[in-house]
Every structure is written in C-alpha cells, then in structure tokens.
C-alpha cells in the first residue's frame, strides 16, 4: 500500500488538485496499484500546487506542479521514483526547511478534518494543559508569550482576555474574526481549511480562560471551502467531547458555531463584525465601550483574529517562554507572511519577526513572476502603504513599520512589477474605500469618493498643484477624522504612492 497525498486546500483545487486526485485514483485502479489517497492540507508552497506527495521510508517525496495529464507518467516511473517533476524530499526544500512553523506546524502534513490525525500530531496538548490550570494562569501564559493581535491592530491578546475575565456578565463570548478581506492574505483561510481543530482548540482555551461558554467563528462567505472544513471539524469535535458540555470530563462547557459574512469588507472591523453577528448592518460602533466590556449582544466578548487564536495552543503546549524566544523587540513569536501578487514563488512563509522584506521577496519569493524588476510592494492589505525598494531592508516588526507609516497588518505582501501605474493603484484605494465604507462617518463615506475625483483631475492635469494640495488635505482629514481604520488608513496607500512615485501622478499625454 502506497500513501499518496494531494491537497484539498482551495488554492490547490483552483489549480487542478481535484482533477489530479481523480486521475491518480483512476490510474491506480487501472494498473492495480494499491494506494491510500489522502487529501491533506497545503504546505503553502503554492507555485508547486497541485503538489503530489508519496510516502517513502526516507520521508515524503514531492512532485509538482502536477496536472492530471502528468499522472500516467508518474505511475510509469513508479510512485516515489525519479521524474522530471520530482522535487525530492518535501521537508528538505529550502523554502520550507528554513521556516519557523509554529502556528502552521501541521500544514501539509495532516488530513484537516481527521481528529485522529490532529491528536497524533500534538493536537489538543495545549487544551489539556489549560484544563488543569486556573483561568488567571492561562491568561498569564498568553500575556507572557507576548502574543499580539495578528489581525492587524497588534493589541496584546493577554490584556484583552484579562479585561473579559474581570468583566461582569452572566454570558460571555469568544468571537473569532475570520473576515479575512485584505487582498494578499490567506493565512486565515489556510487555517480554516487546513487545520480547523487548531482554531477550535484555541477558541476553547480562550473560553475556559475568560469564562465564556459560547463562541462564534465569523467567516467570510468568499471562503466556502473553509466553511465546510470547519463545520465538519466542529461536528467531529462535538461527537468526541472536545466541544459541548463537560469537555473531556473537565466540567468545562464550550459551544461553537460558524456564521457566514455577506461580502462586506468593513465587517473585518471588530465592532462592525459584532453588529453583523447580531443580524444588523455592519456599521462601526463608537468605542468605548470596548467589546471586552460590552461586545456581542452587550456581553463581555473576546474578539480575536484566526491566527491569534490559532497561536494559542502552541503557547499552552510548549510554554510562554518558548513562543517568546522567537521574534524581536516588542514583536514576539512568529508571523505567517503571505507572499502574493506578482511573485515567482508565492506562498506562506512563517518566520520569527525581524526578517527583512528583501529576504522575503528575493530569498523566498524569487522576484516577480513576470521576471521584471519589483517596483512596489503593498504590505498589510488594501490599507497598507506601498513600499519602495529603498525600504526593503526594514525588519518586519510592528514598531519599525509604524515609524514609517507602514503597517505589518495581517502579514500580506503584494508584489507589483515595474509596469504598475501607481496613480491607478492610489485611485483604486479610494474606490475600494468608497465601495466598502459603512457610511457612518463623513470623512470615509464622502472623502473616499472625493478622493477618486481629485486623483482623476490630478492625472488629467487639471490644476495639478492645487489638486495635489487638496488630495493631501483630504487624506489628512480622513486620517484624523474617521471613526475606524477603513477611512483612517485608506490614505496610507494613497499618500505612499504619491510620495514615493510622484512621476506616476503627472498629467498623461492624451492619446492622439
């Protein structure tokens, strides 16, 4: 019996993994070769997807990218043998071997919805430890680890949890923000699809720590594969007493449910998300009160991003000091960086904080897919600055980035080559803000539309000096006067484009 792995990650499926899996099963049947076909999670080396792995005594041998029509030739040489698509031992690939995978330790290794697989690969060790601890001790471990919110705001997770523990309320909630709307990011999606028990475990630990018995995962509706994997895993967790009443005989109770968003970027903002969960328009709330005091249905609520919650089990398993030993300055632990856009080797790179952009773009990313020079990279999603090459040596660190008005955010890095028109990108930032604004505050609702118009007049050469002054003034109003990060940060990509690439904003020659 030969064990063969083909990923069920949606990125792999988007490149033909389902067709490859079908072809492998058919070819095995035709040749009478006994195989066990496992649909595993993805390693996150997406340029190699669909990646086929074959278990051997030495380890898993990889082939990729494989298309359905390559399958017959893989069988012809014999599974596990040399072939033009053979990559050797997957875990020896430098891209993977040099990473520090804590949150993504199981990525590509396990069958995402198999509870047995999860338990056999260190799963639920963190929760087992947490069940034997006092709530305050669990929170102290999270605080001591230095874990900060991985959604973008980087608020210390332990402090948030401590506030909820101390808040009065008959009912408390754990809410997972899985509204990963930032372009260039897919780490949350990979966890939901590829390691759903990890998220369930992290949320259960959070529930026990703060005394919350109910949790919701708010997942974006653009992630149908993640929804299915999470629901399958939640059902299995209930069936095996990892969720529900008296978890593993501990007397602790935690219920968990997936709720789907409906295509509104603003619902990634925590208070808008809570409104949406309550069945309302996703309008941003004024703060205070903080969600930790008055959150979902007016009750004390921990609301954390997927990766934040998914980082908790390893902290409870291996200890706060282990996690804290990774990283630099006040940015502790690891960040799953997502290489995206025009990049040759796009994929997930989980590294300790402190790695440079240049290292990520060249050592890992291999430069652009088009082969042209990199002109700009947008870090931190659609509200992050466009960073020029002069800043590529900046270490990935929350404070170092913030000093230059840049943002680490959720760790997405979108690469553009030298054909990019930065005025067009700046205009898109304003357009996106206008499309996605909840409409509650004026700077965001109206400023974004006016911003588009001003950029149009600027590149049309209509009183350009005045237009630029007006655009900068408008950006200042949005930065200082918006209620939340959407209007309050949309000017960052606009201003960075204008500051670093002013030539792109000069009047265009009109086509004859």
């Amino acid at each position, binding site marked *: 019996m030969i064990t063969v792995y083909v990923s069920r990650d949606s990125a792999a499926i988007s490149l033909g993994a389902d067709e490859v899996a079908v072809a492998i099963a058919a070819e095995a049947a035709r040749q009478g070769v006994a195989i066990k076909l496992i649909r595993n999670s993805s390693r996150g080396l997406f340029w190699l997807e669909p990646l086929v792995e074959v278990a051997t005594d030495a380890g898993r041998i990889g082939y990729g990218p494989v298309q359905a029509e390559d399958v017959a030739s893989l069988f012809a040489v014999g599974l596990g043998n040399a072939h033009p698509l053979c990559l050797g031992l997957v875990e020896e690939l430098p891209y993977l071997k040099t990473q520090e995978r804590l949150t993504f330790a199981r990525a590509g290794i396990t069958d995402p919805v198999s509870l047995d697989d999860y338990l056999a690969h260190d799963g639920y060790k963190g929760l087992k430890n947490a069940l034997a601890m006092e709530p305050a001790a669990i929170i102290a471990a999270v605080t001591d680890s230095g874990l900060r919110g991985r959604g973008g705001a980087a608020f210390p997770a332990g402090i948030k949890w401590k506030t909820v523990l101390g808040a009065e309320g008959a009912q408390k909630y754990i809410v997972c923000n899985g509204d*990963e709307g930032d372009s260039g990011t897919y780490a949350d999606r990979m966890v939901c699809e590829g390691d759903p028990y990890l998220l369930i475990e992290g949320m259960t630990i959070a529930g026990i720590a703060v005394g919350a018995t109910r949790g919701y995962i708010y997942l974006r509706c653009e992630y*149908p594969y993640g929804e299915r994997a999470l629901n399958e895993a939640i059902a299995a967790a209930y069936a095996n007493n990892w969720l529900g009443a008296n978890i593993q005989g501990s007397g602790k109770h935690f219920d968990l449910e997936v709720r789907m968003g409906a295509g*509104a970027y603003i619902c990634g903002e925590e208070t808008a998300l809570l409104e949406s969960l309550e069945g309302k328009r996703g309008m941003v709330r004024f703060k205070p009160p903080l969600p930790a005091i008055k959150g979902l249905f007016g009750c004390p609520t921990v609301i954390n991003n997927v990766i934040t919650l998914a980082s908790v089990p390893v902290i409870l398993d291996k200890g706060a000091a282990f996690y804290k030993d990774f990283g630099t300055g006040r940015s502790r632990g690891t960040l799953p960086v*997502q290489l*995206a*856009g025009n990049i040759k080797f796009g994929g997930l790179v989980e590294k300790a904080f402190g790695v440079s952009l240049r290292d990520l773009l060249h050592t890992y990313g291999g430069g652009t897919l*088009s082969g042209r020079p990199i002109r700009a990279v947008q870090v931190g999603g659609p509200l992050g600055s466009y960073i020029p090459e002069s800043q590529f040596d900046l270490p990935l660190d929350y404070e170092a980035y913030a000093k230059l008005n840049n943002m680490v955010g959720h760790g997405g890095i979108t690469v553009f080559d030298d054909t990019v028109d930065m005025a067009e990108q700046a205009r898109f930032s304003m357009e996106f803000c206008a499309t996605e604004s909840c409409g509650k505050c004026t700077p965001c609702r109206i400023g974004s539309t006016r911003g588009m118009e001003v950029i149009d007049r600027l590149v049309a050469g209509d009183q350009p000096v005045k237009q630029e002054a007006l655009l900068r003034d408008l950006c200042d109003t949005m930065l200082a006067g918006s209620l939340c990060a959407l209007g309050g940060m949309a000017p960052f990509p606009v201003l960075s484009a204008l500051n670093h690439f002013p030539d792109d904003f000069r009047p265009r020659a009109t086509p004859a």
Partner: protein
Amino acid sequence: MSTSTFERKPPIKLAELSSLSPADIATINGVLARLKELPGALLPILHGIQDALGYVPKDAVPIVAKSLNLSRAEVHGVVSFYHWYRTEKPGEHVIHLCRAEACQAVGGRALETHVKTRLGIDFHETTADGRYTLEPAYCLGNCAVGPSLLIDMQLRGRVTSARFDRLIGVSA
C-alpha cells in the same frame, strides 16, 4: 376636511401582491422555521433564502420582517448593505471575479476587461440568454496564484483570458 380622505382602507394582503410562487413562499417559510430562533438570525436566514432560491426576492422582505418582528426597513437595510445578497434572479452560473490588488498585480484588470467583453455585461448584470451573472469580489484568498474567480462557488486560479474562455466553453 372630509374624514373620508383618512378612511382606513382594508389592510393589503401580502400574498395578493407577492410575485412569489407558493413553492418559493414555502421555501422561505422553511428557512424561517429552521433558523429564526438563532441569536442574530437575520444573516443566516438571508443566506438560507439565497442558497435555496439564488437570490433574496424583494417580496421575501416583508415575510422575513414579520417573522422576526422587525420592520421592513430594517430587513431591507440589511439586504442592501451586504454586497453578497442580490435581489434579482441570477443567471444559471454565477461568476465572482476578483478585483483586488493581488490579482491586479498579475493581470487582473486585463482579465476583467476580457470577461466583460466576452460576456457582454458589466458587474451585477446577467447575460441576455440567462447563462451568466457577473459579480465583483474583493479578494478570494487565492492571492499567490491569481487572477482568481469563483464560478458557481468553485475557485479557479491563474485565470488567463484563454482559460476563462475554456471555463465558459467558448473556443477562442
């Protein structure tokens, strides 16, 4: 002023005005029966209706509002706030094309132009033969291998113009 101007008219019966078939109404009532007791039930209910019927018909709004004891305005406000919900019947196949930055960086804008030209429609529109509805999406989480689209909720990556034509069964 004559009092007759303000004479109370008999209440309008919803069923008489509704464009919904009895089967559609039964579907909507089924979704409501299943989900209305959930805390914050409105979004799950609207998803349930759209998953079953392909859209949230305008005439579903008063039925949902009555069931949840909300005003029609509140339900309409939610339906219209969220981009995902549509109030017109879609074509046979729904395409969500990613417009976001990571796809732009690998030819997303050119693909968008090609798709619109090939289908002869803009975003939020349905082809005249009722085959395709085109919707924009702002990120499908497939940013390492764009440009990306969802066709009937199936994700496709590295979509070139030629690959798009093959997906919809048109030879270039």
